[in-house]
């Protein structure tokens, strides 16, 4: 306790210098905490996004997702499709617990513009689904209720003009149950787009996933609208037993279909994590540099403090202070700076998490929805522990230096 109050007193002698050193440590800790939060949050976001797809395995046309990616990023000419009979062939597989066919199309929408020359086009994703099998994959999809949404229901398989809207697109277009919804679709092989007027039969509760921005319609109606009556985009599959072995078996069985790829969502997870690994390594490098700079700053500050107090340390030793006493005092000062920096940095990272998230998202599309920075007590705990270890090592040299001073020489040098 005596050491603690002495250390506080010493640090308060040079308030600005101490504050700047704490700020340096705080900055390094904030970077480290934000990075940790990003790694954790991004993995959780990938898990959530993929789990919320509802499938474990997808069968799709080769190249199809590449086209989809292009379309997602800058618009495009069209997705690639599976032949309709793929569904009939695959659905009898003994390893399949459930399977749902999905047709994905891109409908045009008017983008907002105030220019006299009119607006540009944007697009929205239309999923043609078979409701019973689709909902068995995604049992969490619920229709909104309450004023404006009461009476909402999923469309029947034979319905031609009914749609269900994801939460966000309904809000964006300000649609309620029973309202109309315009979407412009260019049928395959036809030159001119056709404006369709659909009836909103239901609006989904928010899911925090890609489904919030999707227009759902009966699979046959979607295929008819896009003039692809015998095509599919994805077969979403849940296996009875999902492990590496059954997945490999399943994959080798169905890769024999022409122009088909079998993708496990575990692969998607790993690939997405791998894709951002480079970025994470770079940020980690920045964090390490920040930590090293902070470490040098702390050593420098404490050394300066030791040199300024050379005479004082000499007097302390002349009055009976042992080497261990001086060592402990200086070491404690270093630790206190590092712990204070850790606290400040953790608070800063926690407060600025949304800002960091916005900055990261503005740099690149990470392919997932929802929050990608998650600062947990565990992350903060590791950061504080790291700062204590930093303080432990940073304090060694100045403390050794101070404790090794000979009293008479120190008093003479410091005078």
């Amino acid at each position, binding site marked *: 306790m005596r050491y603690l109050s002495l250390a506080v007193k010493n640090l308060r002698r040079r308030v600005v210098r101490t504050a700047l050193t704490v700020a340096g440590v705080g900055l390094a800790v904030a970077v480290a905490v934000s990075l940790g939060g990003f790694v954790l949050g991004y993995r959780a976001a990938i898990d959530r996004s993929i789990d919320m797809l509802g499938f474990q395995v997808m069968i799709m046309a080769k190249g199809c997702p590449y086209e989809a990616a292009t379309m*997602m990023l800058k618009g495009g000419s069209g997705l690639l499709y599976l032949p309709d009979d793929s569904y009939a062939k695959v659905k009898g597989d003994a390893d399949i617990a459930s399977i749902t066919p999905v047709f994905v199309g891109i409908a045009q929408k008017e983008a907002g513009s105030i220019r006299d020359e009119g607006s540009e086009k944007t697009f929205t994703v239309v999923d043609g689904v078979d409701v019973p099998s689709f909902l068995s994959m995604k049992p969490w999809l619920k229709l909104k209720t309450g004023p404006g949404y009461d009476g909402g229901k999923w469309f029947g398989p034979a319905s031609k003009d009914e749609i269900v809207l994801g939460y966000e697109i309904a809000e964006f277009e300000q649609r309620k149950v029973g309202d109309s919804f315009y979407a412009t679709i260019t049928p395959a092989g036809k030159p001119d787009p056709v404006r369709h007027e659909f009836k909103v039969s239901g609006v989904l509760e928010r899911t925090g996933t890609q489904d919030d921005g999707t227009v759902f319609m009966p699979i046959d109606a979607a295929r008819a609208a896009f003039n692809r009556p015998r095509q599919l985009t994805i077969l979403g599959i849940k296996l009875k037993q999902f492990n590496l072995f059954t997945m490999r078996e399943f994959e080798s069985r169905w890769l024999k279909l022409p122009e088909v790829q079998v993708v496990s969502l575990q692969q998607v997870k790993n690939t997405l994590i791998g894709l951002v690994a480079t970025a994470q390594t770079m940020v980690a490098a920045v964090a390490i540099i920040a930590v090293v700079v902070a470490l040098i700053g702390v050593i420098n500050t404490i050394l300066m403090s030791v040199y300024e107090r050379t005479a004082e340390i000499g007097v302390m030793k002349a009055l009976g202070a042992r080497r261990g006493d001086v060592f402990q005092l200086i070491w404690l000062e270093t630790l206190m700076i590092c712990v204070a920096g850790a606290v400040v940095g953790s608070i800063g990272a926690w407060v600025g998490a949304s800002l960091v998230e916005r900055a990261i998202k503005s740099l690149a599309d990470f392919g997932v929805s929802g929050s990608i920075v998650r600062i947990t007590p565990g992350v903060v705990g590791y950061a504080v522990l790291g700062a204590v270890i930093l303080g432990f090592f940073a304090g060694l040299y100045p403390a050794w230096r101070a404790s090794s001073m000979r009293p008479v020489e120190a008093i003479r040098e410091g005078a």
Partner: protein
Amino acid sequence: MRKIMALVAAVSLGAPQGAWAAIGCTLSNPAQDLKYLFPEMTSYKEELKEFHSLKNGKELFKNLKERLGSDLDPIYETYETPYTLYSVYKGKAKVGIVHGVNVPGKGGVIQVFLSTDPDSAAIRRFFFQRLESPAAKALREKTFRAQFEGMTLADFYKHDYYAAVEPGAQADKVGRIAPPKLDASGQPDYDASLRGIRKNLILLDLFVYGQRFEPFFEKAQKAMSAGKR
């Protein structure tokens, strides 16, 4: 690489297209859009207006419904809906006000914007930001939109007055507006657009112009009540 792209896309497929806007109505690119509307602009100020932050907000919200003459959408035109007001400056002089509202159209939301004179409250320009409709081309026609230039909220209240006491009066500017050529499918969006202009002007009168057009509303109300009797 192809496989990687494939996997990434598989997750991205159908991801929400960016953050959907809030329920309020804002310009997509304020700096660019305002410069387009006011080439002389040197700066602008963006203010958020909400009924609950106004004195007598509840009463003013009730007034909006009365003055609009139609029901407000219970989900998308609520007491909590925020409104964004842009004040445009040339140097220190305020040269214009820009304000937009959402109104439900037949097949999607319609965003009706007005730029008004800061002193006279007259419409300088009426334009759409989002409008998906079979009538979109006709409604976006410059000649149609230009008919509203110079009008104020008083003209809309006068229209109510004339409709009650002297239908077809020459002085009824709103009544003399020539609608664009539309088929039946475009009519609801035409009506929604007119409602949007009126709603926009009422809100501007509440937020900016100190309810200066109230006497016209009261006169119209009296005439309409007398007409009913």
